[in-house]
């Protein structure tokens, strides 16, 4: 290994493609209309959340149906910490960036509080116990009126970071008016990139190996000296923090948080994302998140042009329902025909190995 490994030409191609993709993503706010930027932001938030649940369910094998709860903790945590209390709801009036960071920490804390239960349960027991989180969460969101605004939810105070406020106060950049979504787009990109890199680092390093070992055989992993309980608790906290971050981003995009959104359907959506994308893979989580989040938006947009789909309330299949059919079928179909999900699809294309490599 004294010789520096040669970089295969494919790697250059991939780097070039990634670079090109990055540039396209960076210039998109100058060209796309608000609708698509918002859809893109939903996709980014979904991707971040999906990475979180994929670390937990995909890489460590801990089935969680409670992901929506942690998203809610992030979203409402941000509102409560950043709100200034003028709307009659509890608010600490912290600066936006600090509130966002603390909200993510709060979601992690919620995960940590639940981990004594999570640590004792396995498989289906854990899945159904986490289902309890959803219902507890919904109950609190609807009833803790001072904190959450109850049924009608509460307005989300805009984020400000380094003197820049992420609201609709217009900022002209190269003749293009930048509103909330344009500014948030860059924030979302940065957060997603950081989230991807961090999760990849975790998965490729020692913790990732340990997590996979726990998934594949918990007892064998313990015998090999992996502190199973500690890793499971840690990954639960990490996954909750990802969910919290996704929740904060979603809240900023929606500009209003309502309790109904954080129900069981959302948790199922996140599970669908990681199955479609590929269990245990970061790229898969991102792909699945984008697919599931964009599907209803695209169908909504082109409802008139599509057969069988019609606008909500006109009797046919509404776009939201059509999207659910599609990703429900995608979950079943993925496991049937493409175990490993979209991530496997990409990896299956032959990878050129450098000739000198020995395994």
């Amino acid at each position: 290994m004294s010789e520096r490994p040669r970089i295969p030409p494919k790697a250059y191609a991939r780097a070039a493609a990634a670079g090109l993709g990055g540039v396209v993503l960076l210039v998109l706010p100058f060209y796309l209309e608000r609708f698509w930027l918002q859809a893109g932001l939903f996709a980014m938030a979904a991707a971040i959340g999906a990475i979180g649940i994929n670390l937990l369910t995909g890489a460590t094998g801990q089935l969680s149906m409670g992901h929506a709860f942690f998203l809610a903790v992030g979203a409402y945590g941000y509102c409560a910490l950043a709100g200034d209390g003028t709307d009659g709801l509890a608010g600490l009036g912290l600066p936006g960036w600090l509130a966002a960071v603390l909200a993510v920490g709060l979601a992690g804390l919620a995960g940590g509080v639940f981990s004594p239960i999570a640590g004792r349960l396995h498989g289906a027991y854990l899945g159904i116990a986490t289902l309890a989180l959803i219902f507890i969460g919904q109950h609190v969101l609807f009833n803790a009126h001072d904190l959450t605004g109850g049924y009608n939810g509460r307005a989300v105070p805009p984020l400000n970071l380094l003197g820049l406020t992420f609201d609709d106060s217009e900022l002209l950049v190269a003749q293009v008016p930048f509103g909330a979504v344009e500014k948030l787009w860059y924030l979302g990109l940065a957060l997603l990139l950081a989230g991807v890199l961090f999760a990849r680092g975790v998965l490729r390093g020692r913790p990732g190996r340990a997590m996979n070992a726990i998934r594949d055989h918990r007892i064998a992993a313990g015998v090999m000296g992996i502190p199973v309980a500690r890793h499971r608790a840690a990954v639960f906290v990490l996954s909750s923090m990802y969910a919290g971050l996704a929740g904060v981003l979603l809240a900023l995009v929606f500009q209003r948080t309502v309790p109904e959104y954080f129900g069981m359907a959302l948790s199922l959506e996140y599970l669908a994302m990681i199955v479609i994308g590929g269990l245990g893979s970061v790229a898969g989580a991102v792909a699945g998140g984008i697919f599931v989040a964009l599907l209803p938006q695209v169908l909504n947009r082109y409802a008139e042009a599509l057969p069988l789909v019609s606008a909500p309330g006109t009797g046919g299949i509404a776009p939201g329902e059509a999207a659910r059919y599609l990703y429900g079928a995608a979950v079943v179909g993925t496991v049937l025909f493409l175990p490993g999900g979209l991530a496997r699809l990409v990896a299956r294309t032959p990878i050129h190995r450098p000739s000198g490599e020995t395994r």
Partner: protein
Amino acid sequence: MSTFAEFLINGLSLGSIYALIALGFVVIFRATEVVNFAHASLLLAGGYFVAVLHEPLGFWPALAAGTAGAAVVGAAVEFLVMRRHRGADHSVLAIVTIGVDILLATELTRRIGTDILALGDPWGDAVVTVGPVTIAETRIAALLAAALLITAFLLAFRHTSWGVAMRAAAESQETAALMGVRLGRVSLGAWAVAGALAAVAALFLTVFPTPGLERGTSLAALKAFPAAILGGLDSTTGALAGGLIVGVVESLATGYQSDLAFLGRGIGDLAPYLVMVAVLLIRPAGLFGTKELARV
């Protein structure tokens, strides 16, 4: 005291319905080791069949048809989807049932829409008064029907060759297969039975005092999950005990809601989950579940 008795009897009746649902859930788990998250949708399907058919057919034929229909849906899910995945990881299979659930639930809620469908049951809102205690006839019918079905099921489970095959498969799939048990049939049967039990449960979940079958009915059906889990996922006794506990707790929490006002509105719907979490903290395998033993 009489209100307490009413709450208790209503709770037992509700609990026996949860036990019916949980029993189906446990049967599928024992036969195939798969957690069926599509169970609430199976129930909704059964209820929907009865609701649609009771006008042309009359109530009792509609109930029979709905039960058969839900059994067919369950069997179809097994035959078309689960069977293709046999041997895959069980948590992946659980997620497949979530996919099935999304499909079924979307279709059914789209059909039901915002309507509240009546199931045309013969009991209506009649009540029976015994001394100071007043109980709806539907609750008594539910209790009797559930007791009858559960007894019949447990007898079949113990004495028929189908039941023996099912129990053998639950003990060890491989050994059972070597002894000539057809695992495909066992799991098909389990899904069909679970569907049929769920359809009957759907009837009693939607009769008086509940307004009727609506899209939210599956949320009520979901409470059978905590019931099955707190009893122990692989135990039929556990499903019965869990169902009754969940039913009684829910009924008492709803009944004494005004005394529990500090916990917020709708605490009754939450109570089953809180009880489940509390039980799991003390007994992670549920009350009657097999403790996981590992030989290293």
